[in-house]
């Protein structure tokens, strides 16, 4: 049944008795053309585009827990494309353009809300770096503009731009098309869309091994629900990528870190945009429900625990309370953690692997949500064709050997 206002009214009159399941819960078949490991947003999007764009519908998405239960459902949902390097601009802008039409594409309101993402500069070095971003983005046709402190305050009234701040706001880079979306809806929308195209989404099915033939090529996976054959396997498992790739005897340039986030109790609308401060580690927006959604930095050690230290939370709230002193009496309602897969250059890995038939899409670190549609789109093309999509090509594993890194983190590093 299509989702529409009309159908909502019709169903309302009959007690909403006839809405069908949003996706099936099928038993796994013994073989598929493609197996995608990981039913987060990226994995489900991959399956959706495999079916939609490449006509490959004999696809299973295997999920050890419940779909959308990993980082997709744990992040602070920031969407933007104002990255520095051309390779990054290409993939994140590709994703942003898909975001703009995603609700109708999926017939599922993912609540993409381009309310503007403002990144604050707190020192001269920040100013120089952000201006460089603005110029690079303009050349690439990506909106990004520089705001003075006063303009930043006009855009975000609760922001404290006092010069007396320990690290005063010296300005900000604003991408107006940036914003947020409803994370669960993205997973559910892609799941429903993929399911309707014939993809089997199999939850509570943990992959325990990767089967290879005598030539070393992939021939399927072992799971807690039996062996599933497939000539092509795409691993899209975020924090668990290293664990899965180890099943194919591959080491990865990845480390998994805890990343925490928290929400306040809901309050009436007070924060109209997304505000990010890399210098003092504060990321904040307000959800449609009224909660302030706040992202923290990663813990310093690798972990699969989905929890982190209290000192990481307090550090973030120190920054929030300084930037927004009117929020100081508000209260943290819930704090949680995810496992982010971090690469040496803070850019993702999308593409083929040394194992024939095995593909990987990982390394999105702390910022993968924004890329979900684009990531799935180019990864589906990569799996379908057996070679990297042009946008994905620079994000190969090979770059760690040649040294052609796409280093977004170092570009913002501070010295002098």
């Amino acid at each position, binding site marked *: 049944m299509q989702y529409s206002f009309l159908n909502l009214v019709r169903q309302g009159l009959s007690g909403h008795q006839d809405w069908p399941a949003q996706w099936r819960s099928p038993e796994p078949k013994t073989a598929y053309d493609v197996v995608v490991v990981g039913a987060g947003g990226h994995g489900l999007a991959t399956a959706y585009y495999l079916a939609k764009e490449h006509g490959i519908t004999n696809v299973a998405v295997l999920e050890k827990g419940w779909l959308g239960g990993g980082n997709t459902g744990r992040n602070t949902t920031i969407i933007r494309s104002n990255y520095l390097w051309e390779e990054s601009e290409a993939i994140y802008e590709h994703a942003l353009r898909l975001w703009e039409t995603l609700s109708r594409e999926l017939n599922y309101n993912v609540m993409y809300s381009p309310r503007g993402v403002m990144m604050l500069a707190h020192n001269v070095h920040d100013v120089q770096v952000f201006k460089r971003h603005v110029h690079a983005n303009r050349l690439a046709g990506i909106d990004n503009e520089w705001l003075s402190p006063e303009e930043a305050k006009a855009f975000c009234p609760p922001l404290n731009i006092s010069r007396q701040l320990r690290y005063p706001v010296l300005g900000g880079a604003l991408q107006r098309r940036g914003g947020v979306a409803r994370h669960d809806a993205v997973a559910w929308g892609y799941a429903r869309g993929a399911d309707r195209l014939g993809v089997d989404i199999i939850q509570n099915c943990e992959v325990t091994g990767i089967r290879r033939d005598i030539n070393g090529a992939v021939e399927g996976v072992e799971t807690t629900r039996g062996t599933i054959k497939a000539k092509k396997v795409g691993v899209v498992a975020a924090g*668990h990528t*290293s*664990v899965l790739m*180890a099943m194919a005897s591959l*080491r*990865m*340039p*990845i*480390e*998994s870190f805890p990343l925490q986030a928290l929400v306040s109790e809901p309050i009436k609308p007070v924060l109209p945009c997304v505000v990010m401060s890399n210098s003092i580690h504060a990321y904040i927006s307000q959800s449609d429900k009224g909660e302030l959604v706040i992202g923290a930095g990663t813990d*310093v*050690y*690798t*972990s*699969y*625990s989905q*929890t982190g*230290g*209290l*000192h990481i939370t307090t550090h973030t709230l120190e920054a929030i309370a300084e930037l927004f002193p009117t929020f100081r009496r508000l209260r943290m309602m819930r704090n949680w953690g995810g496992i982010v897969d971090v*690469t*040496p250059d803070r850019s993702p890995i999308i593409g083929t692997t040394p194992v024939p038939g095995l593909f990987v899409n990982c390394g999105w670190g702390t910022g993968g949500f924004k890329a979900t549609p684009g990531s799935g789109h180019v990864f589906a093309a990569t799996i379908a064709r057996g070679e990297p999509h042009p946008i994905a090509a620079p994000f190969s594993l090979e770059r*760690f*050997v*040649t040294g052609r890194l796409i280093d977004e983190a170092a570009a913002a590093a501070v010295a002098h």
Partner: protein
Amino acid sequence: MLLIHCPYCAMERPEIEFRHAGEAHVARAPDPSQLDDETWAEFLYFRSNPKGVHAERWRHVHGCGRFFNALRDTVSDRLLVTYKAGEVRPELPPQEHSR
């Protein structure tokens, strides 16, 4: 916040006294120029990142300043044992392996 036993100071101190320093036992080759690009990349970037017992380095940066190694369970974040730099990775009792 973890509680970490510094093998040099011989005391348990809070995590904020320490700085994490990545995977342990990733030795730099005596003569890197002899390595091919793949092997060098392996040293630079590729890590085991296990779910379970992880050998990692910490530095007691706000204490004695020494680098040392630790075995930690990355599922529970529990520190199992710490040992000095240069020492071989200790064997854990079987129950620690099975965790």
